[in-house]
């Protein structure tokens, strides 16, 4: 199943099951969505439930919050996380706070979908990752879908939740064909053990999951170890119990993220691990992240600015050798 099809199925099923579910955003209707996620939904549910909006992110989210207060279950699509900055006041001051400001009388069952990360030559203004902003806002739930299974179940769960959810996607994932694994008792807040191992835990999320998996054979062969890979899925709340179990077993941890290193989300994860699992660690934690530069347009420089399978393998092997692996 394609990643974008998994998202489409999730929205379609939720709209069919619940009339209050609506979607709104730029080109989500007649055009079928910039990344074809809402393909076919306009024809099926009509202009009242699949709403094309002007290019105005503040109003997309503002209107969606209004709909949510009034009893609908809106899904707002922002074309890229960079543009969500225009809607930041609505997201932070309104969506995230209404439940608290109303003493629990009002809930905001809103899902805001947005793709981010480095695609191919979209340059600095269209390539950011802002999980570090959204995960710092109490009142928001932040989910990051790296695969078709989580995209489907995670998005359905997000729509069903009564609190605002920032649902992060990645632009390079939409056309990827992925295995779909049917789930029972799905928990959107649970991290996934992608691969079991006993000597090192690599924590990752979104597209870096695939770069890590490509680097694994080289790492395992060279260091003669087995590596465990944890895909976080939910960034806020963070599934510390899965992380804890893994590190108690492996005693070593590295986090691989695409975002800039300084202030990146990995810093938060490592901070939590240092606080809670310090005496479990047999080596200093390793952070592999993007360079602290605006993402370059030039493809060579673009790739130089973010982790790639080769760089991930190189850094982990070097770090491993220096730390007793």
């Amino acid at each position, binding site marked *: 199943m394609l990643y974008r099809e998994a998202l489409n199925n999730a929205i379609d099923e939720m709209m069919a099951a619940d009339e209050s579910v609506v979607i709104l955003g730029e080109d989500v209707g007649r055009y079928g969505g910039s990344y074809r996620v809402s393909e076919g939904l306009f024809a099926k549910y009509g202009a009242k439930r699949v709403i094309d909006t002007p290019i105005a992110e503040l109003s997309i989210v503002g209107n969606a919050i209004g709909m949510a207060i009034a009893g609908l279950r809106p899904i707002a699509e922002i074309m890229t996380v960079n543009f969500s900055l225009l809607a930041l006041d609505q997201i932070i001051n309104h969506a995230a706070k209404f439940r608290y400001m109303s003493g629990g009388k009002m809930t905001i069952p809103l899902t805001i979908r947005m793709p981010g990360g480095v695609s191919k030559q979209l340059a600095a203004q269209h390539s950011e990752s802002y999980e570090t902003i959204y995960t710092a806002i109490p009142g928001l739930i932040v989910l990051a879908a790296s695969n078709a299974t989580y995209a489907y179940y995670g998005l359905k769960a997000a729509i069903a939740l009564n609190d605002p959810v920032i649902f992060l996607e990645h632009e390079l994932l939409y056309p990827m064909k992925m295995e779909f694994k049917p789930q029972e008792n799905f928990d959107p807040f649970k991290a996934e053990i992608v691969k079991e191992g006993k000597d090192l835990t690599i924590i990752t999320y979104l597209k870096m999951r695939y770069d890590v998996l*490509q680097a694994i054979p*080289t790492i395992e062969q060279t260091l003669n170890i087995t590596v465990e890979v944890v895909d976080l899925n939910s960034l806020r709340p963070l599934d510390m119990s899965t992380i804890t179990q893994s590190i108690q077993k492996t005693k070593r941890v590295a986090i691989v993220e695409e975002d800039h290193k300084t202030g990146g989300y990995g810093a938060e994860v490592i901070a939590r691990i240092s606080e809670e699992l310090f005496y*479990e*660690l*047999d080596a200093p934690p390793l952070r592999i992240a993007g360079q602290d530069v605006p993402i370059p347009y030039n493809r*060579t420089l673009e790739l*130089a600015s973010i982790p790639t*399978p080769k760089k991930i393998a190189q850094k982990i092997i070097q770090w491993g050798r*220096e730390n007793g692996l």
Partner: protein
Amino acid sequence: MDYKIVMPVLSDTMQKGKLIRWRVHEGDRVHKGDVIAEVESDKAIMEVQTFQDGIVKKLLVKEGEEVPIQTPIAIIETDTNKKEALKPQQPQTSISPKEEPSTVPPVIQELLTTSPHPLPQGEASAAAKKRAAELGIDIQKLHSQKQLPTPAHLHDIEEIALKRYFTPKALKLLQDYNIDPKTFRKNHKITDQEVMSYIKEHNIPYSVPLSANRKAVIQTVEYAAKKPIYFVFETFVLKKVPNYKITAILLKKLGDVMQKHPLTRAKLEQEYLKIYPHSNISVAVAKGEELYMVVCKNIEEKSLEEINIWLQEIKDKTYIPQDLLGSTFGISNLGMFGIERFSAMINKDDVGIAAFGALQDNTIAVTFTFDHRILNGLDAAKFIQDCKKAFQGEENV
């Protein structure tokens, strides 16, 4: 400029190579062609050379470590006053076919790779300290006695803990016989006698890992066993020549006769028989536990004297791949052990092999094994007939 030396591909089947010994140290000056290391492939131990002049900047692999082929094993800092563009001698390992070809210019590549991690400071990792506290191990004391590396990791502490309960000899036995230390109750010092009696009681085997050489031999003989072969048993007349090895005489005579029989110089390759001009014979050479089929080349052009010297030299030589390639026929000689007659397995793609027994009363028993796909019975008979004549005659000696 950094020049990376990678684990070389020494045979088609080689996946990994083991670094046996470094011949240089970090900081040594090396010249093009210098041997910098010995590595073990799946077939033999061979030498690795540098193709550039420079100074050994870093040895990336430890002695005894096994790494995949094409993995960098050493960095040579090449002379900076030379302006020529240095190209890597062998392509860098690519991690995955999916990854985009790296087109990152060298300047950026260096920025990415030359930000070395500072070596961790401190006496032990947090986990190692916690475990040491649980076990009542005094890290500082062990450091002052130089019994622990800095920083110490969990496995170092576990090792110390084991040393408390097992004598060094007992530990060695646990390792050799692959026994879990948890098998023993740790309420007293456990000696090698105790471990040995446990081994005998449970009839635990001693595991000898297959050497690369043995694995290669296994592969060769299994391949040989699948060939359609037949045997010819003969007895040749042979007079010992003083100061010459019998194997040298056998090589010379067979090699000369091979010149008259093109099919004994042939290799079967798909739709063709490829007939080579030279008489190249592989000779079974035992080196301790290891068995090599070393190839004596261009025998028809060599004198008996030269072959005799060659046989002396190969005894102590470290083989390079070329030493073991290019034969079309083989010889094995167990005569020195008094074996009267035996048969041998054909080496790799050779046409056949001649197994010689002991020389008795100027006669020597020989068993030929032939690959029927290349040599029919008639061809073999003619070849052996000529061999017989050559062995009887004096002219070649």
